[in-house]
């Protein structure tokens, strides 16, 4: 009976979809049937479902995490409502925004996966190439089009790249995944230097004309072997954007190491050939490719227009949090009279109830759209300044008006060992504990707000720990003859346009000691810096690793197990920590 209902639902959704999408979901539905009939081995099924963004979940069978791509981070109200429905039906009512502007939903049974996929496709969302060895979700600065400091709006260029590679045969079976990011601001919100391609807006004056283009940084990446991208050429005109990106993908396809997956990313091709030889390979690859065009090649301004607000309530009186929220979460747009508002999602999580309510809010305030950020937050745009108090009150009523968005107390974390099959330690649990510790210690203020903490549950760096002021990644070690979750501390990481400084490894700390250690680090930074203007990054470099090692030595120990067994447990765990029972590893986002 349940199967018949699922069949009916998927049939209804499939009727609404464009041809290619309808076909691939119908194919996937057949794959699921063949898998359950035993006509496909689990390995064969796995390879196919991964390409459609459908992962395994730690220690489960035939239940999945589905990664839904949000190209350039742009979500409509209708899409948000669809995600709310899917999260409610399958994902315990929670959706998770990732560090690459995707939404991940969990606990989707295999038989229901095609239904969920079709439901998402009906509102223009896809899971295709959200995983596997393909061009992943193309990300973009969430302030594109409204940032006062941007050179031009990169949105439509990023969308053109999304369209170019989705279902493109050239990007279906690469040696490894391929990530592309776009940025138009001087502040590198998109972290272009750590991507396979990072496209940064540039303009060249030529004969009195302004030529639109990009500085393309190629071959960056994090993971266990982080590398900074190299500048491909001083200027790549927008007319050359698509074929240059395709040339990079083709070079990866041709020269990427298909024998050893551990060295298969394009960054290893750059390392192996050297920057100059790599550039020549790419230019050689580009030369015969057609000059693909896209309508927005010469567009410098946003195509968004100020929305007409509807049904905004009278400005209510606001509480004491409002002033802090206004300071940390609200930024003026280049369009006079409008602001962006960041919604801080703790650890990237948002509930179905919040999504539905937010959909209604953005229809009334923002023209029905918002953007996800790689800080795992949501950015509302085109909010009229006179509506900020009303918006604050409406967001506060649904628990989405927390201040500190993108600041010290807004810790980034990958899913970690709670669900990810590669996770060693509970990064989310630790992130919660660190946020709480910083809040209790009242550590905030303009002098330290810009310090960023990022946490991953393993060395794969989905939490981008390498480019944080204070980064952690999960591991384990024995103390007093008992295994305890540990995190490696990295200090002084930074990503800016064309530059990625990777944090220096300092020390491994037991997970349970880290919130106190983080507070100590920040207090000592405040005390020992040369002036309030000395950034944490500069300070960390000046004092060196030995300073931190000495400062944190007391946090490397635990009391004997018999005295404090809970100290040996992971954050959020009620049982002793173990490396056993880990499920299959699929999710190195």
């Amino acid at each position, binding site marked *: 009976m349940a199967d018949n209902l699922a069949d009916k639902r998927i049939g209804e959704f499939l009727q609404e979809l464009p041809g290619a999408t309808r076909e691939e979901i119908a194919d996937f539905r057949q794959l699921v049937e063949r898998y359950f009939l035993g006509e496909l081995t689990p390995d064969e099924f*796995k390879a196919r479902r991964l390409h459609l963004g459908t992962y395994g979940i730690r220690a489960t069978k035939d239940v999945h995490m589905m990664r839904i791509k949000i190209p350039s981070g742009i979500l409509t109200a209708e899409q948000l409502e669809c995600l709310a429905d899917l999260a409610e039906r399958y994902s315990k009512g929670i959706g998770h925004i990732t560090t690459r502007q995707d939404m991940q939903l969990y606990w989707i049974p295999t038989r229901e996966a095609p239904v969920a996929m079709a439901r998402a496709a009906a509102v223009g969302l896809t899971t295709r190439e959200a995983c596997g060895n393909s061009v992943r979700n193309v990300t973009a600065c969430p302030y594109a089009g409204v940032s006062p400091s941007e050179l031009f709006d990169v949105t439509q260029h990023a969308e053109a790249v999304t369209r170019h590679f989705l279902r493109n045969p050239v990007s279906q079976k690469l040696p490894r995944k391929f990530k592309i990011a776009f940025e138009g601001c001087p502040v590198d919100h998109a972290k272009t230097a750590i991507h396979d391609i990072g496209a940064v807006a540039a303009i060249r004056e030529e004969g009195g004309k302004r030529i639109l283009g990009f500085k393309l940084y190629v071959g960056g990446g994090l993971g266990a072997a982080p590398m900074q991208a190299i500048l491909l050429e001083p200027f790549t005109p927008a007319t050359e954007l698509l074929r240059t990106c395709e040339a990079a993908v083709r070079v990866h396809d041709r020269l990427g190491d298909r024998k050893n997956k551990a060295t298969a990313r394009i960054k290893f091709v750059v390392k192996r050939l050297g920057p100059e030889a790599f550039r020549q390979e790419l230019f050689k690859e580009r030369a015969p490719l057609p000059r693909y065009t896209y309508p927005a090649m010469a567009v410098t301004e946003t195509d968004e227009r100020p929305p007409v607000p509807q049904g905004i309530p009278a400005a209510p009186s606001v509480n004491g949090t409002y002033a802090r929220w206004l300071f940390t979460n609200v930024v003026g747009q280049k369009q006079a009279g409008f602001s962006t508002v960041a919604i801080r999602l703790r650890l990237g999580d948002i509930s179905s109830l919040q999504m539905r309510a937010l959909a209604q809010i953005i229809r009334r305030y923002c023209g029905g759209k918002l953007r996800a950020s790689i800080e795992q937050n949501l950015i509302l745009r085109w909010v009229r300044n006179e509506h900020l108090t009303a918006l604050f009150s409406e967001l506060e009523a649904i628990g989405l008006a927390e201040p500190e968005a993108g600041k010290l107390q807004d810790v980034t974390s990958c899913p970690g060992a709670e669900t990810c*099959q590669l996770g060693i330690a509970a990064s989310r649990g630790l992130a919660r504990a660190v946020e709480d510790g910083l809040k209790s210690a009242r550590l905030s203020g303009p002098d330290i707000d810009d310090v960023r903490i990022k946490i991953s549950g393993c060395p794969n760096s989905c939490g981008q720990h390498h480019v944080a002021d204070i980064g952690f990644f999960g591991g384990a070690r024995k103390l007093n003859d008992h295994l305890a979750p540990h995190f490696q501390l990295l200090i002084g990481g930074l990503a800016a346009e064309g530059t990625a400084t990777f944090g220096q490894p300092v020390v491994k700390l037991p997970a349970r000691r880290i919130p106190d250690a983080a507070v100590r680090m920040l207090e000592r930074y405040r005390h020992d810096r040369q002036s309030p203007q000395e950034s944490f990054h500069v300070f960390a470099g000046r004092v060196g690793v030995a300073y931190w090692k000495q400062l944190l030595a007391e946090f490397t120990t635990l009391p004997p197990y018999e005295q404090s067994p809970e100290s040996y447990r992971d954050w959020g765990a009620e049982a002793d920590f173990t490396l056993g029972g*880990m499920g299959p*590893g699929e999710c190195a986002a």
Partner: protein
Amino acid sequence: MLVIEIAPNPNCEPVDMRVFHDLEPPKLMAQVRLEVSGDGRGPQWYVVTGWTAAGAACPALAHKVDDSGEGVALLVSGGDAGLRLQPAGRDAPWRLDDTTQHGVPFLLVADATDLRFA
């Protein structure tokens, strides 16, 4: 479940703790076909052994493991100082100072046809 963690050693780069989920019992390895950096000769076969921090050879094993890209891959792992390789056809004793040999922490191979078992 396999845990690989390699401390600094004279054979290969260190590796922070990584975990892999093994799907089948491991097989004893003899040779692996690899593309070696920049020599232009294309993929070549290499004899492979495990290597210990104490400086001795030990078995190298191939484990079928889960992989984020293609679903499964073959993890070739050795001792607590990784793997050591030399071109197939050479039967020189395993030594750190033999420049025809080189060390790697582990290999993650996509295709079983690139492996020869003992």
